[in-house]
């Protein structure tokens, strides 16, 4: 059977904050044949379940809750007449820009796009990735799953809760579960520091007298059908449990907040090269992957802390996809960007040569550096420098290269953090 292949100019996969921003930018640049595919029933992505406030301070100079921030972009997309096809799962993306998707409404569809923007976001590291011993009982959830149950579906996953991992989602859920009536007994963190924001430690744990156990981990999970308790132990500097330091918690729920992984199965199928450091695509300064015409932005590219950064990055990807469709995107030789000392996973990994536009280099510091300086060099030449009272792995660092600097790049660019 010959299938009629639908042709679009720009196809965006995912209608979270990244996909919405990319679509808005492409449409504003005059791309009318534009389609956004979304797996869920509603656009908005993870913001829909992030009902707490604190979003948008950089972009809007105002503090919104997640649903409010998302609604701004959804409204703008509607105003522009952007087509968002929801309840549609993309099954595969090919290097030749053929996309196969499936939905209850239309069955299997095959589309062909001139440019594709990958904006699938990330997912949570699951229990299986931790190697925690114990039974396979009910009552163990990733923090984001619990957040979805409570905030979108109105179900409480449990009454007595221990949280493993002190990432921001875990901290936010400690407060949410408490406010909605559960007892949160402890937040347990393997590392000697929390990767969450100070604001969240103070306002989500301290405000409710929830103890934070640093350098501790869960070493046993108990319960037959439902979780009945966990054993927590202190760990040494090699992260090995210290015998005799065990604490027993009588709980019916364990929430995991132990990291996020970009969701790149589709990208890999398209032949997109991934970075082992970010687990996202390797891209140039306009977020184009190694596959011409395929762009990546937001948490599928690298995990962000702030949605404001996701939106800004994704506007850039959308503009670039529009330029690619018009044949107006300069693609030639590129200069490599490398991680130096103290730096991990700089994005972009390369910059187009001779381009006269500013570029934001984003990276994670590999440790905690106080009163340090980020230095960018091109070969032996220093091209940018930024001092900060602190660089920490919990906060993505950004250093801007000015247009005239970018235009002058002729050798490998290296980003380092120097202690003072």
């Amino acid at each position, binding site marked *: 059977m010959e299938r009629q292949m639908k042709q679009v100019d720009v196809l965006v996969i995912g209608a979270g904050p990244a996909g919405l921003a990319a679509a808005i930018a492409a449409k504003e640049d005059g791309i009318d044949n534009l389609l956004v595919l979304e797996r869920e029933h509603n656009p908005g992505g993870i913001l*829909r379940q992030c*009902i*707490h*406030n604190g979003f948008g301070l950089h972009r809007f100079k105002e*503090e919104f*809750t997640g*649903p*409010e921030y998302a*609604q701004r972009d959804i409204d703008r997309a509607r105003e522009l007449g952007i087509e968002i096809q929801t309840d549609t799962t993309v099954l595969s993306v090919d290097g030749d820009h053929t996309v196969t998707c499936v939905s209850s409404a239309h069955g299997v569809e095959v589309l062909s796009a001139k440019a594709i923007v990958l904006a699938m976001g990330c997912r949570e590291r699951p229990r299986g990735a931790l190697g925690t011993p114990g039974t396979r009982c009910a009552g163990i959830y990733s923090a984001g799953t619990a957040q979805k149950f*409570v*905030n*979108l*579906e*109105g179900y409480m996953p449990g009454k007595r809760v221990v949280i493993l991992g002190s990432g921001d989602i875990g901290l936010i859920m400690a407060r949410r579960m408490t*406010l*909605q009536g559960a007892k949160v007994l402890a937040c347990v963190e393997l590392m000697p520091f929390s990767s969450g*924001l*100070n*604001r969240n*430690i*103070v*306002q989500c744990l*301290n*405000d409710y007298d929830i103890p934070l156990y640093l350098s501790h981990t869960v070493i046993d999970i108990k319960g037959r059908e439902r979780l009945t308790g966990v054993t927590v132990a202190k760990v040494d500097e090699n992260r090995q449990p210290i015998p005799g330091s065990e604490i027993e918690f009588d709980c019916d729920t364990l929430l995991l907040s132990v990291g996020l992984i970009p969701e790149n199965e589709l990208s890999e199928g398209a032949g997109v090269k991934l970075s082992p450091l970010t687990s996202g695509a390797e891209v140039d300064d306009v977020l184009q992957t190694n596959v011409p015409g395929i762009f990546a932005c937001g948490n599928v590219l690298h995990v962000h802390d702030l949605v404001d950064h996701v939106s800004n990055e994704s506007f850039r990807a959308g503009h670039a996809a529009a330029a690619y469709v018009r044949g107006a995107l300069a693609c030639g030789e590129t200069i490599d960007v490398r991680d130096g000392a103290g730096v991990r996973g700089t994005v972009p990994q390369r910059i187009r040569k001779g381009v006269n536009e500013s570029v934001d280099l984003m990276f994670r510091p590999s440790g905690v550096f*106080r009163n340090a300086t980020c230095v960018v060099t091109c070969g032996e030449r220093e091209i940018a420098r930024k001092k900060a*009272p*602190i660089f*920490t792995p*919990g*906060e993505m660092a950004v250093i801007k290269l000015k247009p005239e600097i970018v235009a002058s790049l002729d050798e490998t660019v290296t980003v380092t953090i120097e202690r003072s």
Partner: protein
Amino acid sequence: MEITCINCPVGCRLNVTLENGQVVSVTGNTCKRGEVYARQECVDPQRMVTAVIPVRGSAMPLSVKTRTPIPKKLIKDCMKALADVQLDAPVEAGRVVLANVCGTGVDVIATKSVP
């Protein structure tokens, strides 16, 4: 009194001296924002409250927030007051679902629409 500054990732430990409920000195801060925060936090700590409440006629709960921060000591009472709110779908984002919560003068509003 010792508190952690929340303005940035540095997380300065602030030592705050109080006399008769008034801040007389703040030390440990490395910038001006730390002092401003300490003066507010030690005398009159305020928090935004966000929550979800059920809506009759909808399978989805409604997310809500206080329009501005309210005194931290009233968070529990605010949640109790919200538990008694009876709402029917549809609800439009921005609608006041509970006016003047706990006598704070602050309204609780819907942060999304429930059809």
